[in-house]
Structures are given as structure tokens and as C-alpha cells.
């Protein structure tokens, strides 16, 4: 990165929204043929910076140069002309389009007024094969593709425009581990072809594996530019949050008690089979598996959201009739679910912090048969202090809170009900590091207070750091039962991909290749 020319240069970018200063003299320089990481907590100004780049926000001051040419106040289309392309976190492809139609949308191959559909399809297949060795069935629609395949289509779209700079905005959020590895291969290849790449991610190990330089943003300001090969992720994390993250995974030490959730022979045809697990009081039980392994279906079944074919579920010694398994029964039995889709299922975005907090236990705030606003407020303020929820007030709509604080509200809902068995589905996805640590601390507190936690996560370091035991699912079965102190992420992953069966099979013999 010392000799290559500068591809993208942002100088002294400031942007205010009302009284909030989102960006304060932020700088970013990216060179051709290198990957430039951009990290920061949520609210640090990353997304504002990207939106300035994409022409969505006009900066109050500062300059943007692409390939040495000064640009100011450009439309998205002109930005593309300048050679700046974006791979967004969400796939911006219409679901009912064919690959060819999606790939060439806005730049269709045409003769006269007519779109040359079959030529587009053929070109699309050729490009995907040549660039990424991806072969898709003929006539396949975007909605039938996996997240990773859609992303490859998205990247191919960007490449059609001959980009000088490619910006990846949280590209791996929807990907599973081996797809992430694939994507990293693609990014490296693009770097090799001389494109400048800006890579934004919450996952610091990706930054470490991929980036040549990293810019750290905090409160809208550049706080450091570091070489991730020399500076460990922990140090980068500390720069981001401006405090030591020495104890990222606060470990609680609780001796597990009786089994509070006992599952035997649980089967849902086509999803998972013969699942047995015990969750004990004061225990954090980790559960992980790739997409399609049955983990998601299992969690939904445990909360009574999808029906079960056979087996038994026992909660605190009481067997639950499978036929009538429904959330409201399990809720009464003391179960709480923190769903993965926080914004859609975890909280009601338009309701206030107070309404969300008290929603799950409304009967507790009754007075003369009506809701007592005073009692509700008391409880909400209590939870706000306990969990450290940052909000403008108990009446603020949850929509206005940051991701981490929304997650805390989702948790507060169950805490105010005094639930004691928690099913946490990806509790830290999309939350910045500082808030993650707080969520981890809260999980630790939960078990200290005698709750039991089933932690479903695809973040392996998180699982290893928090869990007392880890179950790994593969193709609908529990394929491994690990103790975190005696294993590592590679072993968990090998088990999840089916590359290795648990300890009793020696690693490394006859591994079937996975992609």
C-alpha cells in the first residue's frame, strides 16, 4: 500500500443532523489494489460516511476525490460513473427477476426498444462462471438463490460497471461461515485485479483476515489508522469503544442445578430428528449449526411456534403436551424467547420503551382491572437502570433506539415477567461491540440469578466465550457436544459442516469437501 496510487480520498468530511454531529472532520484514504477496513461502533458515523460516498447525504464540508478527481454533491448515478460501486448489506435485487434481468437491470442489453432476454441470460451465466465459477440452473429466479449467491450476483453487477472502488457494507451479515470464506476469496481476487476495496464489518476477525489498513471511527471522528496484521483485534476493539475490552466475555461461575428444560426424542419431519438435550438451572447451553441444520426450526419448536412431530418436552419437571404446544402455554411455564429478527419479532418498533417492557406481563400492572401507568413506569424505569437502556425516555418509540438498546428492551420484556428459561436466538447480531459486551454481561447476570439460558449463535467466539457446554447440529441431528475449554472454533465448524464427527473420530481422515 506504500506505492499504489490513491483511489479514493475523503478529506475533512463533516455532517450535522440538527444538533447531532454525525461526522466531524472524518478522513478516509483507499489505495488501488488494497483492502481498506472501516470499523466503528453503531453510531460512530460509518453509515453516514458511506451515505456521503453514495451521494445520499451531502456533506456540510469536506471533499471527496475518486481517482484524483474532485467530486461534490453528486447523484447516485454520477457516483457510479465516477467508478464507485457498493455492495450493500441487503441484496438490492428484485426477487422475481431472473439472474440475467437482475444483473443487467438499468443497463439492459437491447436491440431497439426490446430487451434481449436470452442474450442477457447467456451473458449472465458466462460472467458468473468466468468470474466466480458459479453455475446456476437455467431460468432460476433471484428468490431461489441463497444469500451468498445473491451477493455474488450483486458483486458481478458492480463489476459490469468497471469499478475503481468497491465498497462492501457489512457483506457477511446474512452469510454462513463457509460462504464468508468464499466471499473473502472473492474480495482478495478483486484486490489482486487492482480495485480499491473499502470493507465495513462488525466482525473484527474478518477485518483481521482481509484488510491491509483499517480506519477506526469513533463519534464521527477518525481515531486511528492501523495495520491489522500488527494490531490485534482486541486492540482495535478498544480503539472503537475507547475502553478496555479485556473481559469481552464476562464469565459467570454458577454451579448448574437441576434440569429445567428436558427434551427427549424431539422430531420434526424434514427439519430435525431425535433431539435430546438438558438445560440446567444456572447454565448457559450453546447451540449452533449451519443454515439448514435444523437449529432455527428447533428453537422455534421449543417456543411452540412450529409444530413437532414426536418426542417430549419437560419444563421444570412438568411434561408439556406436544399437541397443544403454543407460546402462551410455554410463556406461563417460564420460557422466554429473544428472536433473531429483533426489529420484526423482538420488539414492537412503534410502541414506546414502556409499552414494550410491560407487554409480556400486562396482568401484573393491573389496578382495578385497568393498566396502572404508575406501576408500568416504575417497572420500566427499574429495567432501564438495571439494563442501562439508553433512550430519550420511557415514552420514546423503540424505533428511535440503537440496535443494542432495542435488544435490551426485548430482554427487559421478559425480565419484567420474571421468566427463568431464556431462549436467545443470535442475541448479538447487528449490535456494536460495546453493546455486545453489555448484552453478554446481562446474560451472565441472568444465570447468576438462577435462570437457564439456551444461547443459539453462529458467532463461534461468542459461543465459546459464554457457554458452559456447546451442542452442534448437523443435518437435523446433534452432531457434537463440546466443553468450551477443551475445543476451539475450528473443531466446532468442522462438526457443523459435517467435515468431522465429534472427538471419537480422529480429525482429518476422509473429510468430505464442503464446497
Amino acid at each position, binding site marked *: 500500500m506504500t506505492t499504489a496510487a490513491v483511489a479514493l480520498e475523503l478529506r475533512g468530511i463533516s455532517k450535522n443532523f440538527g444538533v447531532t454531529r454525525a461526522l466531524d472532520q472524518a478522513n478516509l484514504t483507499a489505495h488501488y489494489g488494497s483492502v481498506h477496513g472501516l470499523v466503528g461502533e453503531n453510531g460512530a458515523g460509518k453509515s453516514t460516511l458511506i451515505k456521503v460516498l453514495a451521494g445520499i447525504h451531502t456533506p456540510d464540508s469536506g471533499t471527496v476525490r475518486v481517482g484524483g478527481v474532485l467530486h461534490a454533491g453528486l447523484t*447516485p*448515478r454520477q457516483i*457510479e460513473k465516477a467508478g464507485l460501486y*457498493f455492495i*450493500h448489506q*441487503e441484496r*438490492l*435485487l*428484485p*426477487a*422475481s*427477476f431472473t439472474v440475467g*434481468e437482475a444483473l443487467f*437491470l*438499468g*443497463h*439492459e442489453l*437491447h436491440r431497439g*426498444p*426490446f*430487451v434481449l*432476454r436470452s442474450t442477457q441470460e447467456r451473458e449472465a451465466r458466462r460472467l458468473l462462471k468466468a468470474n466466480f465459477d458459479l453455475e446456476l440452473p437455467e431460468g432460476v*429466479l433471484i*428468490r431461489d438463490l441463497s444469500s451468498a449467491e445473491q451477493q455474488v450476483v450483486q458483486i458481478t453487477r458492480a463489476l459490469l460497471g468497471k469499478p475503481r472502488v468497491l465498497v462492501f457494507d457489512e457483506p457477511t451479515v446474512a452469510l454462513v461461515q463457509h460462504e464468508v470464506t468464499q466471499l473473502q476469496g472473492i474480495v482478495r481476487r478483486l484486490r489482486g485485479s487492482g480495485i480499491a476495496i473499502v470493507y465495513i464489518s462488525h466482525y473484527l476477525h474478518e477485518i483481521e483476515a482481509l484488510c491491509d489498513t483499517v480506519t477506526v471511527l469513533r463519534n464521527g471522528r477518525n481515531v486511528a489508522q492501523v495495520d491489522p496484521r500488527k494490531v490485534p483485534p482486541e486492540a482495535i476493539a478498544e480503539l472503537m469503544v475507547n475502553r478496555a475490552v479485556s473481559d469481552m466475555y464476562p464469565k459467570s461461575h454458577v454451579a448448574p442445578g437441576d434440569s429445567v428444560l428436558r427434551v427427549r426424542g424431539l422430531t420434526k419431519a*424434514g*427439519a430435525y430428528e431425535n433431539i435430546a438435550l438438558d438445560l440446567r438451572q444456572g447454565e448457559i447451553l450453546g447451540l449452533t449449526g*449451519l*443454515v*439448514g*441444520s435444523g437449529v432455527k426450526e428447533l428453537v422455534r419448536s421449543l417456543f411452540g411456534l412450529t409444530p413437532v412431530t414426536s418426542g417430549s418436552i419437560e419444563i421444570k419437571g412438568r411434561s408439556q403436551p406436544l399437541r397443544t404446544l403454543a407460546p402462551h402455554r410455554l410463556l406461563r411455564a417460564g420460557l422466554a424467547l429473544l428472536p433473531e429478527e429483533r426489529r420484526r419479532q423482538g420488539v414492537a418498533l412503534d410502541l414506546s420503551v414502556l409499552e414494550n417492557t410491560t407487554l409480556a406481563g400486562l396482568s401484573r400492572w393491573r389496578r382495578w382491572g385497568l393498566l396502572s401507568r404508575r406501576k408500568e413506569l416504575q417497572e420500566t424505569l427499574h429495567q432501564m437502570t438495571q439494563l442501562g437502556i439508553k433512550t430519550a425516555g420511557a415514552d420514546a418509540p423503540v424505533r428511535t433506539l440503537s440496535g443494542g438498546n432495542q435488544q435490551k428492551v426485548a430482554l427487559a420484556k421478559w425480565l419484567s415477567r420474571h421468566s427463568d428459561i431464556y431462549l436467545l436466538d443470535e442475541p448479538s447480531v447487528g449490535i456494536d461491540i460495546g453493546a455486545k459486551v453489555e448484552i453478554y454481561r446481562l446474560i451472565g447476570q441472568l444465570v447468576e440469578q438462577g435462570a437457564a439460558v439456551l444461547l443459539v449463535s453462529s458467532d463461534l467466539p461468542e459461543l465459546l466465550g459464554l457457554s458452559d457446554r456447546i451442542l452442534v447440529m448437523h*443435518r437435523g441431528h446433534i452432531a457434537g457436544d463440546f466443553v468450551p475449554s477443551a475445543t476451539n472454533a475450528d473443531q466446532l465448524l468442522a462438526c457443523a459442516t459435517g467435515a468431522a464427527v465429534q472427538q471419537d473420530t480422529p480429525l482429518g481422515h476422509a473429510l468430505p469437501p*464442503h*464446497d
Partner: protein
Amino acid sequence: MHTLPPPFKQRIALLFLRRGAPLAFLLILAVFALTAPNFLSIGNLANVFAQSAILGVLAFGLTIVIIGGGSNVVTGGLDLSLASNLGLCAAVYASLNNAGYGATTSIAATVLTGMAVGAVNGAVVVWLGLPPLLATLASLNLINGLELVLTENTVLPTSSVLLDLLSGGNWLGVPALAWIFTGTGLLLALLLQHSRFGLRLYAVGEYAEAARAAGIPVRSYVFFSYILSGICGALAAFLSAAWFSGSTTGSGELLLSVVAIAFLGVVFSPRVLPSITGTIFATLLVGFLMNGFQLLNISSFWVNGIQGALILLVVAASSMLRASK
């Protein structure tokens, strides 16, 4: 990697939608062919096409708006004012024609009226951001009012060369209305399913954010879809005026059939999307039902019931599909 097949219920829904509709169509044709006298005669088939023309052209307009606004029944594109637009345009044409204005003036003023209604709808939807359901419901009332002012709620009989040509014209044994219906359908099918404009309009309707990211001016596209819909309303007004020899009252009653046809058309597309070709099939399906019932001397009121049942089936099946995503 191991992927699970989609749940049973959704596979059934998909199968029903993809295969069921064409099968049902053929089945209905077969039943009528066997039971109703003269059903398959050229004269009768041409008659069905001609009778379908008014509903069909209106349904084309609605289809375009649904393509550009998305096919969600509540929040997507919708033009409830189409049938009333027909009424107003027919009234404008009849009044001007009767007042002695030339053919060009009358025709131009009628088309402009249709486009103006479309422009108002489009402007309210695009720039005021009102949901199309409410915006076009409001303009429906407005247009009905204007029509009443113009006609004082009476029938305005009128005749002109154009109307005579439309009602009496006949090429190769096929009535002019049938030609107009097929011609308009094919032209719009080319525009929406094979041109860059059409493809982009689909992108705008399905995923506006993606269209915007691809540099497509989303608002102009949506606005233009309402203009096209207005033009369809005006075109249908000529057909209606030819059919009834003047403007009639109560054209707003066509609305439910038009909505039914446009949503029914979705099942005739392999990707389960609104399309002009699908709407052509749906129009003919309804036309054949109505015609077959007449030939069999069954009350045509039954057709309403069957239309209703079909809408219910289609909407239920497509919402089941949506739930799978």
C-alpha cells in the same frame, strides 16, 4: 449443503397457482364446448373477444399500475378510479360530439381527460405519498361527481364515424372490438414484458430500493404507470360508447370485475406476477364464463359468484406464497 424442501402447504399453493389456472381455463372451455350449442363457432368466439374488450382494456390499465406499484393488495399499486374514468371520458366524448365539435377535437379532449385523471392519481400517489388505495378511492368520487355534473345522471346518446366503425366494423369476420382488444393487449404486452421500460417498471414495483440503486427514476416510472392507466380508461370509454351508442350511467359498476380480472391474471404467469398476457387470459376466462352461461341459459349472476370465489382462491394462494418468503 443440505436444504429442506419448502413446506407442504406452500408447495401445494405454488402448484395450484402455476398449473391450476391454465388447467381450469381449458377445463371450462371443454365443458362449455361439450354442453353449450355453438360455443366453439367462430362467430361466438369472436363475440366473446368483442364483449371482453371493455373490461379487458380497463384491466390492462389496472395491471400496469399494479406492476409499477407492487402487487400487495393493500399497499401496492391500485387504480380504483379506472371504471369511473371510463364513465367521465365517455361523457366528455358524447357531450363534445353532440355539441358539434370535430372528431379530432372530441377524441383528443377525451384522451386528455383520461390522462389528466391518471396524472392526478399519479401525482397524489407519488408526490403526496398517499397509499394508492385511498388516493384513487378519493379520485373515484371526484370523477363520479364530475360525470354527474356533465350528464345530470342521464344517458347521452351519440353517434359518430368512429363509434360506427368500432361497433359495426368487421375484418376477416372478426368484429372491430375484438381487434382492438387483441391489438392493445399485444402492444402493451410488448411494452411491459419485452421493453426496457417494462422490465424497469417491474423492478420499481417489486423492489423500489433496488430500482433506485440501479439508477432508475422510481417516481417518474410510477407516475407514468398511472398516465398509462388513464389512457386505458379513455380507450375503454370509446369502446363503451360504441357498444352502448353513447355514454351510460353506472359505469363505475365495472370496477369489481376489473379488479377481479387484474388479480386473477396473476395466476396465468409462470412467475406468479401481474402481466398483460395473464390479464388477457383472465379477461377471456371471465368472458367465456359469462358467454357459456348465456348459451346454457344459466343466470349470468352466477358469474359474479364464481368471480368472487376465484379472487378469494387467488388472493389466498398468493398470500400463502408470500408467507413462505
